[in-house]
Structures are given as structure tokens and as C-alpha cells.
């Protein structure tokens, strides 16, 4: 199967004065097309830094990241931005929606950036319908519930059909009910649309819907288990 995302000996060291902190150590990872990976680990283990490196939001100290065959780990901001624009969709814990735009506007601006100016109103409407937000088209993010905001953030992330969806604690700000709705949606994207997903989570139940679980500690990958292998299998949510 085609590899959508690959990291090779990825290392990120943060320097604060004379102090060096290694957030990610020698991480090598391959994500095949259509796979759903969950990354778990304690706070400060380097999960989010890894996600930022994989998504081209940060540059590694050493190592490489290839997205759909293109190197995103180069130092040039323009190159990283371009790959991010064409191939990556982000979902954040804080939703990160543009507060002054409507739900529709938030989707359209993602389209505009992706397509260098053009928009597809019909596709926006399809996505909003798919995510049950058709009645909230003209609502601003502040007028939506947390769950609706995160659904909108997911819609925005996938509206341009990215090669990979990177989700950083997508249920971290949601209550149990909304978490379930959002997780179901993410799972559906993976199953129905074969969307490749890499999700960071603290929540073992959330991780349970993935095909592969990666565990990180101290910036390293300490274990990788395929679906059905890990102990929490019995705790999987019946979504």
C-alpha cells in the first residue's frame, strides 16, 4: 500500500539558553494510505511536537518527513506551507476556527487557500450536510456548541480532501457525548472515505477506534500495536 506519511530518524531539540530539551528522538514512522493511527503517551512525551513536525508546522533538528512523497521537513517556510496547503488537514483541541467568519465562511476560506482563490459552494454545502451542520451555515463559531465547533473544524480539515488528517487531541475540549459524536465522525471519515488519519489522544477510548496504536515516552516511540492487539480492546467504544 502507498505510504502517505513517513518520518525518518526524526529528532527535535529545543534550546533555551544553554539548556537543550529533546522533545522528539529519532522517530521513524510509516503511515500507509487509509490507515488510522492513534498516538498516546503522557504529557510532555513529545506527541504534539511530533505532530507539528509531521505537519510541517515546525522543522526538525535532524531527520526527514515525507508527505505523499514530498519532503516537508526542509527549512523553507514556503515549501512547508505549500505542502501543508495541498496535502494536510489539521484538527486541533482548541478548534481554531476563525471567529469573525460563519461556519460556511470557515470552510470557504480553507477552500480558497487550497485552490488559490477558487471556491466550490456545492462541496461546502455537502460537507456541512454530512456533518449535520446544514442549519448552522451562517452561524459564527461563538454561536455553536463545542461539539459543533469541532465538527466544523473537522469539516474544514477534510474539505480539500487532504492526503492525511492530523488531529491533536480532537476531543480534549469536549464532554463525553460530544466526544463520542466527534470520534464517530473521525472513524467514519477513515472507514467510508479511506481518509488517512493520525490522531494524538490521551483518551484510551478514543485511541480504541484507530487501526494502530503508537505509544510514546520521552520523545521516543516505545511501542506499536495493530488493531486488536492492545489490552484496551475490550474497552473499545461501540461506536
Amino acid at each position, binding site marked *: 500500500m502507498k505510504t502517505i506519511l513517513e518520518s525518518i530518524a526524526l529528532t527535535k531539540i529545543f534550546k533555551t539558553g544553554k539548556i537543550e530539551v529533546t522533545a522528539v528522538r529519532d522517530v521513524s514512522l510509516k503511515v500507509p494510505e487509509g490507515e488510522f493511527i492513534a498516538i498516546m503517551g503522557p504529557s510532555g512525551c513529545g506527541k504534539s511536537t511530533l505532530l507539528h513536525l509531521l505537519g510541517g508546522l515546525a522543522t526538525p533538528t535532524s531527520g526527514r518527513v515525507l508527505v505523499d512523497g514530498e519532503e516537508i521537513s526542509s527549512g523553507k517556510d514556503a515549501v512547508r506551507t505549500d505542502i501543508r*496547503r495541498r496535502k494536510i488537514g*489539521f484538527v486541533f483541541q482548541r478548534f*481554531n476556527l*476563525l471567529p469573525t*467568519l460563519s461556519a460556511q*465562511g470557515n470552510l470557504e476560506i480553507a477552500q*480558497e487557500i487550497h485552490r488559490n482563490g477558487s471556491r466550490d459552494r456545492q462541496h461546502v454545502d455537502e460537507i456541512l450536510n454530512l456533518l449535520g451542520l446544514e442549519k448552522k451555515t451562517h452561524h459564527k463559531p461563538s454561536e455553536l456548541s463545542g461539539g459543533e465547533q469541532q465538527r466544523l473544524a473537522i469539516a474544514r480539515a477534510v474539505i480539500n480532501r487532504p492526503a492525511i488528517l492530523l488531529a491533536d487531541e480532537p476531543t480534549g475540549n469536549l464532554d463525553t457525548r460530544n466526544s463520542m459524536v466527534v470520534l464517530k465522525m473521525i472513524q467514519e471519515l477513515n472507514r467510508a472515505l479511506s481518509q488517512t488519519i493520525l490522531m494524538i489522544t490521551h483518551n484510551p477510548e478514543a485511541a480504541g477506534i484507530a487501526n494502530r496504536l503508537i505509544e510514546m515516552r520521552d520523545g521516543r516511540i516505545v511501542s506499536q500495536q495493530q488493531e486488536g492487539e492492545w489490552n484496551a480492546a475490550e474497552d473499545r467504544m461501540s461506536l
Partner: protein
Amino acid sequence: MSSQLILSNVVSRPMRSLATALAVGVEVALILLLVGLSTGMIRENSKRMSGVGADIVLQPPNSSLVLAASTGAMSVKIADLVSGIEGVKAVAPVYLQLNTSGGLGLVWGIDQESFNGITQGFVYREGRGFQGPDDVIVDDIYADARELRLGEEITLMNRSFRIAGIVEHGKGSRLFIPLGTMQRLVGTPGQATMMMIKCHDKSDIPGVKAELEGRLKSYPIFDMSSFAAHLEEANRDFGPIKFFTRTVVFIATLIGFFIIFLSMYTAITERTHEIGILKSLGAPQGYISLLFLKEALVLGGLGFVLGLGLTFGGRFFFQLLMPTLQHQLPPEWLLYTGILALFSASLGALYPALRAARQDPIEALAYE
């Protein structure tokens, strides 16, 4: 959609947008009011000069077309020489002097009889001509602006004058005193700063002008149609006025620049998180810079519209306070100020916009 984002950002921060646009508006109004007032005064002067009815104007050697600044004088006896030329119907010596008492303006010293020969006489609203050496004739605009009545006393050139007549405006000056009085006040008896010449027929003008040019070689001689245009041009290009106008335009543009700079700089700090979101969506640096530049242009455009409102409001206010002040807006200055407003806005937004584009996406996303 980026235009919707720009507009929504302008609308969602109404006070900041209004204050910024207002500051640009003040820049625009300052320029337009100043230019309008100077143009209005210059044009109105030329119009009044044309309204005298003279066909030819003769000035002494080394005189200036900026009449208020002209110091040259010539003997009134030249009038006798001029009146002997074939085709000349009337000659009126006039002495122009700048008055600073009770407002700034030119006072004309005239010999009423010869002046009437040029103008066909004043049209009196009240009173009549000079009765004595301390009489003054004022025009209706001057009288109305100061609520002056016939017989009242006014101070000109540090001397008291009695209003002997109130006349319709449009014939040279707003204030006329006897030529002899003016000559005594200025200390130049028998002198004049200008000769107004009336020909029997328009067809006589070129011949009379050529004859004068032959006899009075160093004297500037103009036919009235070109004199008014020369006056306008000379006053517009008069060094101090030009320098003052340019200085005000520069300072106003600088104000606009700094206001937009501060506003956009603040906006970028305030919207750091938003910039992070756009970066995470893959917005290139150019897209983000352009977003802020366009927003500044919208504010500049709004400021220009507000500035036009302030200009017309200011003009109305000025005319209410000082009816003698004329405000005429040259249409090309509307274009210039529009360009200046947008130029200062885009220049002011340039650094903040570039700074926004260079933000680190992770730091921007983490910004609270």
C-alpha cells in the same frame, strides 16, 4: 472569502476601525480644506480682478503678480501718458496695500472718478461714494460677514475709517479707500501700484498693449484675460504658500501613515492566533500580507470617504463663521488625496503585514 474576512474584521472591531478611518479622514480633510481655501481665495481674487472691467493692466517695473507681496510703485502721471494713446477710453491708477487690521486682505486705494470710468461705477446697496479722506467703501460680503452698517467706523492699517458706502461685491477688492489717503498712509505720494486701462473697443486692446510695450519697456503689461490666469498661477506657485501647502500635505500624510501603522500593528498582535490558523491551513506569506494590506486599504478608503464628509462639513462651518473665505475644491485634488490616503494606509500597513506573514505558526497558534 478573504474579502469577507477583511470586512468582518473591520466590522467586528467597530471602534478601532472608526478611530483609524477617522484619523485618515482628518488627514484627507486637512489637505482638502487647506487646498480648497487657498484655491478659493486665489480664484476669487482673480475673479474680482476680472470683474473690475479693465482691458489692460499695467504694473510698475520689478512688481510681483502676488499682489499682496508686490512692493513696486510708479508715478500716477503715467496715467496721463497712457490716456493719450489712441484707443484708450479710461485709465485708473490704483494703490494696493495689504491690511492686517481686523483680518487679512488687500485694500485698494482708488481715485473714484477714474475708477468709475473703468468699472462703470459701483452698484450701491447703501450709501454712496467717498465724502472725505477717511471714508471707506466696503463690499456686501465683507459688510454682511461683520454685520457692518453705513456710517460705522472700522480700523484699517491702524487707522479709523467711516463706512461711506456698501457696494455689490466683485469689483477688485472688498475694501476701497481714497487714493490720496492710501498714498499718505503708505508714504508714497503721487504713486500707484497698478494702472487699470479700459479701451474703447476690444479690438483696440492689441494695439494699445503693443503701444504701451513700446513706450514702457520695463513695465509688465497684461491684457485682463491673461492677467487673471497669471495671477492665479503666480499665487499658486508663490513660494511660501507652496511650501506651506506641501508641509501640511506631508504632515497629514505622515499622520495617516502612523495611525494605520499603529492600528495594523495592534491588529496583528490581537489577531496572532488567527494568523496561526491561516498558516495551519497553508496560507502562504503573500496571502497573509495581502490580507492585512487589503484591510488597511479598506480603512484608508473609509477614511477618505469620512474625510470628504469632514471637508464639506468644515467648508460649511467656515462659511458660516467667515463668509469672506472662499473654498473651492479643485477636482484633481480629490484624486490626489484619495491616492495619498490609500498610499499612506498601505505604507503604514506594510511592515505589520510583513511581520504577520513571518509569524511562527506554532507560536501564533499557541497565542492566547
